[in-house]
């Protein structure tokens, strides 16, 4: 490895926390366990790295080690745990050499075998990573194809312990292949670095086997090293380990037989016990200690992480380049001159960036943004980066530092000295372009996605453990689907209701084991978009493997791991609304025919338009980013946002966190003036003033902790981390919150205030928003609302063109557009493109022409071919002519006919289908070749015979089937007479407060648009119905849901009896009885319904 250029060592951030290391007791007998399989050898090891390391320390081992099979995935966790316990750690892995039978080209030969290897320094660690990356890159995801030759090629500096295998017929004997393996390993490892692993595991032939190994050692001149083949930290984990093996093997414990270990001896043992087991070979223990201590000389925090730095042009320092780009950007952002406040901020940020050497990182991010812009891909930074004025000037984020107070320290802080985390949203349809740009620019060796550890959750735990215990599939299903019984305190009773006896021993075991397995990793997946980019080869820093997705490579470490090692990551995320906004802007500009310079763009949208806020206050927000959900819509009339910051609050407040922390109602009362705004102290007023005394943002919780509870900023940041990682590390948050309460009370705040704050911070555990993040989102809320208000046609078309995204299906988007006076025209081959387009025939208001993308099953290629032919040859009058000119396949034409898209040819759906049915694809040749068409009209198509009449209702249903919507009518309208007899009210009538006051009985019916059961709503089930007059929102209480489950859960249309609940302008129907309308609707579908 070339001499590493001097660079900054990023110290381990978690180190700073525990300043007082525990005094570690070391056992009298020297021993260190080398063969340690943790839960990161998926479904094999039954203890976490943390448990293993802590136990090794407790037992007084000289060092801890981790050696997962072909993986370093758990090593960072072990490293952090070892630092906390104050025990040295040997970094290594277990190489399972078992090249697959069908050897991919380039995989060298070499017999099977198992070798433990440990790094002794940075260089050998790099080689180990490179070795694993090589093996993983040539195998499918999750596998590793390594041969002995690969190991020998990377052997320098590594310590190896060859693990013997037995022959199946006589386990006492050593496999002949083992001696060969040892001999071959001697080629790469000198006697000093190679040992023979021996273990005494209470098998039938331990003594004989140990003697044979010793003899082999004498023959080859290699010492024995004692190991205990550890798979769990304490013997009590045996049951869990057995279950994991069964999950892996897909069998039950009763069937597993010899796949399970015969006893529980594979746990970490006390050194004295190991000495007793190895009484015959006492030197083997000393050898293990020697290996572990040599390996522990390498510490994981020696890894130097250098940002990729080819982003600055030659002759300029990165800082100069960054400054130049920033000031140039600032000039563009503020054409009227950069405000002094912003200048000050930028200079402040420059100082910190330079000091912490983060320039290349900012430049990297800028480069991504520049690339995206050059391709016309919209992007916008979110999260903490929005706190940076530099990021704003670089065009990474869009929150104007002049308008919002920023807290740069939340993003980059000297004291925390942790790499900043920049998340950038790109258009969801084009994110892959950016990802491939990164791979292409930095290469697979230097850039990869971070991993995401998929762990067992309650449902998967019950499912897998239940299966392994041999419960019937039916029973496992029932348990897994009705998980609310778990942790709810009334387990036993609920279980009995499900017909399961909780006292039954297997059930007890199931609950116990399922509890234990939760949080254990199951496999590695890829992070949504977190990229690690390095200057030095990344594959020498961490093993890289293939992802399940074609063209992606992933490192073995997750977000927490790279955080712990201080590595930089850029989150390349996808956001549907950006796609929609770009498309809407393009449509607006196209219709307006504006020249490039004056075209409407994201940053030229006029701010603070009161018409937009009027619309938002009226909850007229179908399709608007973030505030289109039912919960948001019911909040809008109460919150009545009038300015940008209100939108920031709106985005942040209707989240599970603030709802559970009980922040919503106090805020609303204070805003409407029903409750006085008071602050327990002046410091608190400064922090909470802008949110009327209610902490809504993470930053506020941090600041409160500092000013009111006497936390240091470092500790406050720890609090923030704990909030974010609450799910995984609940106890850390608990501990900090206790400290916080104690601090508050000590500083003279009332216990009541402390308790409330505590509850609110706990609420943040569930997706609390940082302010900067909410501000970034609020910007998109404003932009999309502005587009909807001023260009409803373009907005609706763009929404449909960006599907799937958001809350609403095309049918609701179209309906909403029509309610706003937009003329929506049906799909037609002579007028539609693949996407929805705007049509402007002299009117001031453009109409939406639905695109062929709405036609189910129609590919973009065929749609484009049709559109191109129409563009080139003018409108067609026969289907056959269209087929010949466009070369579209008959299958595609048939789908278009089903969608009733030939109306401009004078053909209704039936007639078009009649015609299309007679067409055949031409044999592959030159489609659309004019040949016999030259100069001649298309051959006459025979007239369509008189086809049977089809009712309007039928035609509407066919529309729904072919395009998921109908412009002709709403299906519920056809059963209206029947519904009226049942006393059903049209949805729109509910708005009339005099006819339907609070508490009045009412019945509504319609198609089910949305079903929701938020975790925050105490089991309430929400439904939104649509009929021909509008939508109605239902609330279904759990007991009603249980009673009418079939209709509530499965029906596509329902009839509801209940009563009206009014809160201001918000109207709900509280359901008392639900029934499915599906059969009533289906019954009308066929004239021949008396048959069958």
């Amino acid at each position, binding site marked *: 490895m070339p001499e590493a250029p001097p660079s900054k060592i990023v110290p381990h951030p978690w180190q700073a926390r525990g300043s007082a290391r525990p005094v570690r007791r070391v056992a009298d007998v020297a021993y260190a366990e080398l063969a340690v399989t943790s839960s990161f050898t998926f479904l094999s090891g039954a203890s976490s790295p943390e448990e293993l390391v802590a136990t090794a320390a407790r037992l007084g081992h000289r060092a801890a080690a981790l050696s997962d099979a072909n993986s370093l995935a758990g090593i960072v966790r072990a490293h952090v745990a070892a630092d906390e316990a104050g025990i040295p750690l040997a970094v290594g892995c277990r190489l399972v050499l078992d090249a697959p039978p069908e050897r991919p080209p380039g995989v060298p030969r070499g017999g099977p075998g198992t070798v433990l290897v440990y790094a002794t320094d940075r260089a050998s660690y790099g080689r180990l990573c490179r070795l694993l990356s090589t093996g993983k890159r040539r195998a499918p995801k999750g596998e590793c194809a390594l041969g002995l030759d690969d190991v020998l090629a990377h052997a320098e500096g590594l310590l190896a312990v060859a693990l013997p295998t037995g*022959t*199946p*017929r*006589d*386990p006492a004997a050593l496999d002949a292949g083992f001696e060969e393996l040892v001999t071959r390993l001697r080629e790469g490892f000198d006697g000093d670095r190679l040992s023979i692993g021996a273990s005494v595991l*209470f*098998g*039938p*032939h*331990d*003594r*004989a086997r140990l003697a044979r190994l010793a003899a082999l050692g004498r023959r080859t001149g290699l010492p024995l090293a004692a190991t205990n083949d550890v798979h769990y930290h304490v013997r009590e984990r*045996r*049951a869990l380990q*057995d279950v994991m093996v069964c999950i892996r093997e897909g069998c039950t*414990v*009763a*069937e*597993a*037989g*010899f796949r*399970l270990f*015969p*006893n*529980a*001896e594979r746990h970490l043992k006390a050194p004295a016990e190991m000495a*007793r087991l190895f009484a015959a070979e006492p030197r083997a223990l000393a050898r293990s200690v020697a290996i572990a201590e040599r390996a522990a000389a390498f510490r994981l925090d020696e890894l130097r992480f250098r940002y990729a730095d080819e982003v600055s042009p030659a002759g300029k320092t990165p800082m100069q380049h960054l400054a130049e780009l920033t000031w140039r950007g600032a000039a563009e952002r503020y054409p009227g001159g950069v405000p002094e406040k912003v200048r000050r901020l930028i200079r402040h940020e420059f100082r910190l960036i330079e000091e912490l050497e983060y320039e290349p990182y900012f430049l990297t991010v800028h480069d991504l943004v520049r690339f995206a812009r050059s391709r016309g891909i919209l992007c916008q930074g979110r999260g903490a980066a929005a706190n940076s004025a530099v990021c704003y000037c670089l065009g990474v984020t869009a929150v104007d530092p002049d308008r919002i107070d920023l807290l740069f320290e939340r993003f980059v802080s000297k004291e925390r000295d942790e790499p900043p985390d920049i998340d950038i949203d790109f258009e969801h349809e084009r994110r892959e372009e950016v990802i491939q740009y990164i791979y292409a620019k930095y290469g697979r060796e230097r850039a990869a996605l971070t991993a995401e550890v998929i762990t067992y959750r309650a449902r998967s735990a019950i499912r897998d453990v239940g299966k392994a*215990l041999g419960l019937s599939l039916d029973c496992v299903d029932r348990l897994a689907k009705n998980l609310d019984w778990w942790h709810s305190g009334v387990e036993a009773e609920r279980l009995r209701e499900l017909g399961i006896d909780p006292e039954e*021993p*297997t059930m007890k*075991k199931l609950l116990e084991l399922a509890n234990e397995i939760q949080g254990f990793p199951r496999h590695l997946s890829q992070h949504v978009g977190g990229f690690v980019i390095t200057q030095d080869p990344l594959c020498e820093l961490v093993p890289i493997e293939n992802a399940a997705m074609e063209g992606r490579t992933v490192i073995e470490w997750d977000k927490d791991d790279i955080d712990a090692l201080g590595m930089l990551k850029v989150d390349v995320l996808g956001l549907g609304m950006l796609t929609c906004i770009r498309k809407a802007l393009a449509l607006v500009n196209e219709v307006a025919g504006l020249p490039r310079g004056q075209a409407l763009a994201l940053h030229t949208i006029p701010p603070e338009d009161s018409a937009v806020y009027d619309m938002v206050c009226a909850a007229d927000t179908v399709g608007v980013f973030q505030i289109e959900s039912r919960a948001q819509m019911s909040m809008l009339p109460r919150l009545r946002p009038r300015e940008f910051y209100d939108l920031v609050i709106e985005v942040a407040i209707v989240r599970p966190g603030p709802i559970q922390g009980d922040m919503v109602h106090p805020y609303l009362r204070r805003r409407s003036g029903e409750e006085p705004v008071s602050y327990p102290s002046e410091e608190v007023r400064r922090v909470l003033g802008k949110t009327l005394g209610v902490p809504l943002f993470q930053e506020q919780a941090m600041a409160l902790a500092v000013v009111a509870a006497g936390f240091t900023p470092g500790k406050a940041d720890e609090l923030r981390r704990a909030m974010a990682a609450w799910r995984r590390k609940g106890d850390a948050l608990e501990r900090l919150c206790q400290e916080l309460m104690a601090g508050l009370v000590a500083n003279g705040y009332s216990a009541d205030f402390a308790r409330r704050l505590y509850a609110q911070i706990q609420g943040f555990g569930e997706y609390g928003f940082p302010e900067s993040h909410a501000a970034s989102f609020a910007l998109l809320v404003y932009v999309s609302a502005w587009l909807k208000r001023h260009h409803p046609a373009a907005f609706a078309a763009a929404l449909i063109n960006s599907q799937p995204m958001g809350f609403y299906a095309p049918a609701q988007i179209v309906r909403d557009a029509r309610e706003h006076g937009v003329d929506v025209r049906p799909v037609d081959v002579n007028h539609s493109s693949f996407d929805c387009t705007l049509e402007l025939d002299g009117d001031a208001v453009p109409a939406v022409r639905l695109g062929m993308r709405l036609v189910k099953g129609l590919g973009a290629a065929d749609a484009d071919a049709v559109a191109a032919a129409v563009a080139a040859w003018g409108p067609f009058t026969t289907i056959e002519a269209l087929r010949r000119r466009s070369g579209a396949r008959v299958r595609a034409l048939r789908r278009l006919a*089903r969608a009733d898209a030939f109306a401009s040819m004078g053909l209704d*759906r*039936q*007639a078009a*289908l*009649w015609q299309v*049915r*007679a067409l055949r694809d031409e044999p592959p040749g030159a489609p659309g070749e004019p040949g016999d068409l030259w100069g001649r009209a298309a051959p006459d198509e*025979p007239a369509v*015979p*008189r*086809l*049977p*009449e*089809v009712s309007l209702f*039928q035609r509407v249903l066919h529309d729904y089937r072919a395009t998921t919507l109908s412009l002709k009518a709403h299906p519920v309208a056809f059963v209206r007479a029947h519904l009226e007899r049942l006393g059903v009210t049209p949805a729109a009538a509910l708005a009339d407060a005099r006819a339907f006051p609070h508490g009045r009985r009412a019945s509504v019916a319609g198609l089910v648009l949305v079903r929701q059961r938020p975790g925050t709503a105490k089991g309430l089930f929400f439904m939104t119905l649509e009929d021909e007059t509008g939508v109605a929102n239902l609330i279904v209480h759990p007991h009603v849901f249980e009673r009418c*489950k*079939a209709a509530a*859960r*499965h029906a596509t249309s329902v009839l509801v009896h209940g009563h009206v609940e009014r809160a201001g302008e918000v109207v709900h129907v509280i359901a008392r009885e639900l029934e*499915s309308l*599906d*059969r009533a609707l289906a019954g009308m579908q*066929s*004239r*021949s319904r*008396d*048959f*069958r």
Partner: protein
Amino acid sequence: MRRFLALSFPAFAVDRFRRRSPGAPPLVLLFTVERGSRWIAALSPEARRLGIARGMSLAQGRAIAGERDLAIEPHDPEADRRSLAELGAFATRFSPAVAVEGDAGLVLDVSGSERLFGGEERLVHLVVEAFARKGFGARGAVAGTLGCAFAVACFAPRAQRRVALRVPPGGEAAALDPLPVAALRIGTDALQALCEVGVETVGELRALPRGALPARFGGELLSRLDQALGTAFEPFVPLRPKRVPRRARAFEVPVELDVVRHAARELLVELTTELRERCEGACRLALDLECAEAPPVREELVLSRPSRDLAHLASLLEPRLERAPLGFGVLRIVLAAPETAPTPERQTGWHEPAGQAEVAEVAKIDRPLGELFDSLVGRLGRAGVLALVPVETHVPERAFEERPLASVETLRARAAITGLARPSRLFAPPAAIEVDAGPAGAPMRLVRNGGARRVLRCFGPERIEPPWWDAPTEGSRDYFCIEDDGGRWLWVFRDPQARWFVHGEWT
């Protein structure tokens, strides 16, 4: 003039299920597994009335049924087909020519035979009732074409179902016109295409220009239509029941055992010859003897593998004959092979390709083994022949199971070879002994049956932990193999309470 009686069984699969499980609740769902989830393939009318439908997911069906009692079972179309063929055989009592139509229909050619039953209407009633007694709900109709009869049987409007359906000769078109096009037995593609252009009934279809149809809806449509109308020929392929190989001899006077034995031998020769011609072997043999002044004798042989080996079959049959109570002699002897299976003749040459050598080897062992097995079963009865089957488990006393030897295949099933040191004899249960253990826990001296023995050599411990999932009270055992001064090798263990047991011995 031909007349056809068509029968449709609208809930065939469910009726069949009901017959198998008479106590089942009225709600029945039969499901298939597709794309990883379970879908309803057939259901009882009671379930349909609740709003459950074919093609729903099983979960949805369950949700609709709610708390009501449900019978849920996998759908087995193969068994349905077999069962339908059996019903066809049953229907031959009404007409010699019976054909299976589709998945749940039968067609009887009743040309002329209706007179035996008092007219067509009455015949329909009789047939439907006969099937109802067997537990199958059927709808029937008679018409001049197979297609028309079937269409009317399946699709007659609900109002007409109570009356027996009879389409008068020449009335096919009128009967078909109001029926849905699905009644024409056409593929789903054509059905969907017709539905799309709005054509729902046969009448609407007939109103369309004939010439335009094949290009749009496939050639099958017209031919099906014409077959139903009687303007095109439709083949009628009656079921032919499979013949059981069977040979009989009658004697004019009662004969003695010697003659019977000789006759049986001759019958066996004829039977095996027939089996060879059919390339089959017998799975069962049935021998019926009609005796003078004694009840008839029936001897049944069940064979471990299909066989037509004369010597083997004879060796099984003869002991049975000798033991049979023949009274004053035998009047008639019948030998049949009620169950047969194909056994292709395999040519064995001097050269066997490498891969097949092993197969041949197995076959070489299998045959004598199978014959031995048949003879043992013949003499000792099925329950009298057991096999020791190795079981994959670490617990020594469970490592083998005695199982009734159902077939030779069980013998070949072997668990993985363990390679563990296990004694040749296990004591059940292990016997308690007293042991003086050394400092490391290894036994030094043991007292067994009152006699004290010194331990000369000792290996171990091997620690075996009981399966935690079904023996929660037992603790782990530490096993030692020891040689005592009497020269015996014993397998002893210590339990967690430090009690000692001897579990086995190498003899």
